[in-house]
């Protein structure tokens, strides 16, 4: 095990797959010579050269179109969209082309590509560089959607995404790039569609994603030590496919479900999980399902405003204290 940052784990995951398969290539704005604006692709140009690690013009439709055309013809491209907010300028390629083409053509193509993108808030960048848009992607049939919370998961899930025969949107969290964690050495491949139980409790089940995972874990500690509430924490990791079995098993044990979501409230990923639990686990619930989300607003920029907006440890603790029991 080596200790890597989340951003180093991105490069490590990509490098592992590029060494294994020469059809894996990386394109995006400033990904090659500059090593990415978040420095998540540092070293890849040196190791793999400009044919496989390529800077592109500022042209998000061309970046994803290139990835799709390449994936349809035998390659396994990884395309970077610098900020997930920018997906809006190439959403046609994502939602109409990449997602639908296999189905529309009666299975004539496989489209094995990965769209990596920096998602989420906490950096005071304002509303056009800070959104959590994982729920946009989740709403489109034909896309797999992954959002890791730890360096190990970054490496393992990125490898799994590259090997997956379907298109995967891989949401890296901006506020996690500097975090560190143990990452398995050597070849490491995780599995899409598997949630992880990070902490076992008996009173409530908290289901979280990406940056909300460390906050949920911290909140669980405080709930235990200061308020005597014992919380399970599940890291969803993959929204599509969704590991309902792991989530259901943990909700059954505690009888309470809390989702902690960074996406704005309406149609956030937790709404889907809540509805599944309400439909299929209703009689195991001991109280209402509670969703803790960013309010339904564009994200503000100033420190105190952004902090008051995205679910914080305090907000999670307070909400659970007030509603559990």
């Amino acid at each position, binding site marked *: 095990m080596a200790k890597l940052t989340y951003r180093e784990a991105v490069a490590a995951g990509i490098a592992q797959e590029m060494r294994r398969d020469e*059809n894996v*290539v990386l394109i995006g704005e400033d990904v090659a010579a500059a090593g990415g604006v978040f420095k998540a692709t540092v070293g890849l140009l040196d190791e793999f050269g400009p*044919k496989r690690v390529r800077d*592109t*013009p500022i*042209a*998000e*439709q*061309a970046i*994803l*179109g*290139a*990835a*799709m*055309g*390449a*994936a*349809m*013809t*035998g*390659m396994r*491209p990884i395309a970077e969209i610098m900020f997930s907010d920018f997906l809006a300028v190439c959403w*046609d*390629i994502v939602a*109409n*082309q990449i997602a639908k*083409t*296999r*189905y*529309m*053509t*009666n*299975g*004539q*193509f*496989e489209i*094995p590509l990965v769209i990596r993108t920096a998602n989420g808030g906490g950096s005071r960048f304002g509303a056009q560089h800070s959104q959590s848009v994982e729920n946009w992607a989740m709403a489109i*049939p*034909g896309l797999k959607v992954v959002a890791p919370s730890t360096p190990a998961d970054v490496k393992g899930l990125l490898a799994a995404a590259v090997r997956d*025969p*379907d298109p995967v949107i891989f949401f890296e969290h901006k506020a996690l790039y500097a975090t560190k964690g143990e990452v398995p050495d050597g070849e490491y491949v995780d599995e899409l*569609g598997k949630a992880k139980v990070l902490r076992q409790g008996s009173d409530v089940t908290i289901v979280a994603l990406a940056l909300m995972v460390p906050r949920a874990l911290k909140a669980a500690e405080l709930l235990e030590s200061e308020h005597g509430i014992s919380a399970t924490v599940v890291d969803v990791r993959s929204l*599509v*496919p*969704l*590991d*309902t*079995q792991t989530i259901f098993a943990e909700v059954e044990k505690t009888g309470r479900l809390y989702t902690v979501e960074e996406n704005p409230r309406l149609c956030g990923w937790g709404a889907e999980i809540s509805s*599944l639990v309400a439909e299929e686990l209703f009689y195991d619930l001991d109280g209402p399902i509670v969703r803790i989300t960013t309010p339904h607003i564009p994200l503000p920029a100033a420190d105190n405003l952004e902090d008051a907006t995205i679910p914080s440890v305090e907000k999670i603790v307070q909400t659970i204290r007030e509603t559990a029991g």
Partner: protein
Amino acid sequence: MNDQQNNVSPDNDDIGEETRLRLYRSQLEIRQLENRAHDMFLENLVKGTSHLAVGQEAIAAAFGVAMDSEDYTFCTYRGHAHTLARGASMTGVLGELMGRQCGLLGGKGGSMHLTDVEHGVMGSYAIIGAHLPIAMGAAWSAQYRGTSQVTVCFFGDGTTTIGAFHEALNMAAVWKLPIVFVCENNLYMEYTPIGEVVPVEHPAADRASAYGLESIIVDGNDADAVYRIAQKAIKLARDGGGPSLIEAKTYRHYGHSRADPGTYRPPEEVEAWLARDPIPSYRARLAEFGIGEEVIEAMETEVDAAVDEATETAKASPIPSVDIIDKDVWADGGCAWRN
């Protein structure tokens, strides 16, 4: 390369009889099948919508003949022509228009999405401009993998105004990709004349210089002229010389789609273009080059028979089984999003 001269001197036949007959046959197949689709639409056997390329056949036919079997075609909702021109089965095309099991897409795609990977038809795309970047990606892949495959991407005059056009042309030029962009300028977007929405006379050719490309305009109603340009551009791409942007002037005989009678077009304009119908004029050229009337007639009879047969086969084909609804969202053949 502007305004290609028609080479009609029988002493100087750079194209040759065999190729000319293929060009004629392909145009004829497209024309007859499109007209059949039109008739069957009126009988309510062809469903949804359809965008016919009647009048524009010479372009698809010429590229179809000029391309190698391994090359890639990307086209639009007005793509029955380009699909047939690569050798896709008539039954597969008609069947898809009719929503039958024998359709190229098993009934899942419909008229606007004809695709036949086996014949290099990498899809018909119905969001204006979207397929230009995707075609560019296929060309990048061919370059990366070191194959000699060339990608040909067809689109309309109206498509030159959407951003994806610019993004794709720019990146294809910078990366020197083996791709030929073919703008079929039929003078109209849907109902609006192209001249009202672009500030230049030639919507594609006048923009070529922005990508460091040559300005190329060709008579899109002359299969020989298109064939010559196609060969040249395809060779350039295959030899590593990068992309071309070709503007082919043409005209559609029907309206934009099945719902459009096309009444916004001045009658004199329609008349003038009907007089330049690519098919009768090509037939006359075959005669000029000494191809016997009996050879031409035999081919016409064969094509008619093939269209009739495809029609009957498609009519006899069952409707798709509803079992396919939840198939093939994912590569594993299924559509599961949860466990």
